C-alpha cells in the first residue's frame, strides 16, 4: 500500500545511488520537485529514463547525478537545445554520460513490455536507421504467423518510477488526467514508485476512467502542490512557457547554471 511521506523521506527511502530512475510525464505533470530533491540528496550514478529528458533531466545531468540516460527526444520543446545534456555528451561535463537512445514509440513500448511482464515488445520501427545500430536494446524478431520482420525492444524495468499527479485519495489511490503520457506503464513496470500530488482528497468524485493507480501499485505519495512547475497540472496550473524560454540562457553557461542550482535547488531545502 502507498505510504504517505514527505518528499524528502520518499526520495531517501526509494532512490539509491546507481538506481535506474524513470521520471515520467509527457510535457504535462513532470515531477520537477522530486528531481530537485534527488539533486539535494546528492544521488550519484543514476540511470535516468525519460522519453523527453526536458529541463528536469538537464538539471539532474548538470548536477552530476546521472551516469546514463535512456531517452528518445532530448530538446527544450519549441525553444532549442538542452545545454547541460549537450555539455555532458559533447564535453563530458560534469561527467561522461552514457546514452541508450530510442524513438518515442520504441521507448514507450519498452515500458509497455515492462508493465506487461514480458521480456520484449514488438513494433514496426527502426528499420534502416542508425538508431537501431547504436542501441543494445533494439533487435529484430520474425512474426511466427506472417514472417514479417519487426523491431523488438527489450523490456524496461526501472528500480523506481517517479511521477506527479493531480490527486490522491486518503487511501492512497492516485488519479491523473489530461495528457497522461506513459505514466501508468512506467509505474507498473518499476519495482518501486513515488507519486507527488497536487491535492489529497477525501474521495474521487468524477468518473473512474481517468488514469487510476490503485494504492497497492504505488510505494509512496508526497503532497507537493506545484511540484511539476515549470510544467503544469491540468486543472491546477498552466505551463510556464516563459520559464522554458528563460532556461535557454540559464543553462547555456556552466557558472550561470551552478548559480541557478545553488539558489533554486540547494538553498530550497527548508521549503519542503
Amino acid at each position, binding site marked *: 500500500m502507498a505510504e504517505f511521506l514527505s518528499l524528502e523521506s520518499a526520495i531517501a527511502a526509494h532512490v539509491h545511488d546507481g538506481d535506474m530512475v524513470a521520471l515520467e510525464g*509527457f*510535457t*504535462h505533470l513532470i515531477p520537477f520537485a522530486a528531481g530537485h530533491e534527488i539533486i539535494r540528496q546528492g544521488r550519484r550514478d543514476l540511470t535516468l529514463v525519460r*522519453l*523527453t529528458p526536458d529541463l528536469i533531466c538537464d538539471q539532474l545531468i548538470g548536477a552530476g547525478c546521472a551516469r546514463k540516460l535512456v*531517452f*528518445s*527526444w*532530448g*530538446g527544450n*520543446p*519549441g*525553444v532549442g*537545445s*538542452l545545454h547541460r*545534456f*549537450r555539455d555532458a*555528451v*559533447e564535453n563530458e561535463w560534469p561527467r561522461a554520460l552514457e546514452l541508450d*537512445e*530510442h*524513438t*518515442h*514509440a520504441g521507448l*514507450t*513500448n519498452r*515500458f*509497455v513490455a515492462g508493465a506487461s511482464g514480458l521480456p520484449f515488445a514488438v*513494433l*514496426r*520501427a*527502426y*528499420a*534502416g*536507421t*542508425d*538508431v537501431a545500430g*547504436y542501441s543494445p536494446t533494439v533487435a529484430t524478431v520474425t512474426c511466427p504467423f506472417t514472417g*514479417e*520482420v*519487426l523491431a523488438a525492444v527489450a523490456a524496461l524495468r526501472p528500480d523506481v518510477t517517479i511521477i506527479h499527479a493531480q490527486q490522491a485519495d486518503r487511501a492512497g489511490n492516485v488519479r491523473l488526467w*489530461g*495528457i*497522461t*503520457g*506513459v505514466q*501508468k*506503464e512506467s509505474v507498473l513496470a518499476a519495482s518501486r514508485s513515488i507519486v507527488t500530488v497536487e491535492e489529497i482528497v477525501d474521495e474521487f468524485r468524477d468518473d473512474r476512467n481517468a*488514469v487510476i493507480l490503485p494504492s497497492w501499485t504505488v510505494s509512496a505519495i508526497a503532497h507537493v502542490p506545484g511540484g511539476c512547475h515549470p510544467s*503544469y497540472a*491540468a486543472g491546477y496550473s*498552466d*505551463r510556464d*512557457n516563459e520559464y*522554458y*524560454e528563460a532556461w535557454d540562457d540559464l543553462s547555456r553557461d556552466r557558472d550561470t547554471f551552478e548559480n541557478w542550482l545553488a539558489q533554486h535547488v540547494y538553498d530550497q531545502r527548508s521549503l519542503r
Partner: protein
Amino acid sequence: MSEFSTDEIMTIAASRELSGARSCFVGIGLPSIAANLARSLHAPGLVLVYESGTVGAKPSRLPLSIGDGELASTADVVVSVPEIFNYWLQPGRIDVGMLGAAQVDRFANLNTTVIGTYGQPTVRLPGAGGAPEIATACPRSIVVMRQSRRTFVDRLDFVTTIGFGDGAGARTRLGMPGAGPRVLISDLGIYRPDPETCEMTLTSLHAGTTVSQVRDATGWDLAVSADLVETAAPTEEELVFLRRLKTASSAKATD
C-alpha cells in the same frame, strides 16, 4: 501583393500540401505552424494529431510544446502515449506526417541526432522523437526545412529517419507501409521524388530564387525537373492568416 519572406513562402507552401488531407501528425516548430495555417485556410476539417496524445487539437494560438494545455483542452480526445503510437500512428490511421530535420539527403532521409560522429559529436541534436515511426507509418509525409550546404547534404552524419533509404524499392525491402515523402519544401524551392529513382527533384522555385542559387545550397548534384515552375506567390489571405497565427503564438522563433 505584399512582400513576403522566404520562411513565409516555405510555410505557406507546406500548408497548401495539406489541402485534402483528413489528418496530420504534427511536429513542433515549422510543421506545427504550417498545419495550423492549413486548418485555418486550406483544410478546415483537418484533424491535428500531436504525439502527446491529443487527437483533433484546435489551438487558437501556436503551442510552444507538443503538450501545451491548449492542445489537450481543445482536442476531440486525449489518449496515452502508448495508444497514440500503437493504435493510431502505427496502423496508418493518420494520413500525413509533417517533419523537420537538421540534415536531409537526396532520398529525403533525415538526421536529427548528431552533427559529427555519434561517439564524439560536434553538435548533439535532440534525437529521433516520433519522426522515424511517423515516416514509416503515415501513408505520406511532408518534410519542411531551411536549405543550405549544411542542411542539404550528400551524406547524413546519422540516419535517424528513413525517407526513401538508398532509392527505389528500399521502403518495401525495409517493410515500411507508408509511401514515403511526397514533398520536401525549403525556403528556396519545392522537391518531389522522381517516379523512377525516388531522388528528390527540384520541381518548383520560390519567387526571386535561381537554379544556380539552389545548386549552391545543395550538397549533392541536384536533379532539376524539365517542368520546373515558379511557386505560386502567397495570397494576401495566406499572409494575413500566417502572420496572425505567429502573432498569437506563445513562442518566440519556433524551430
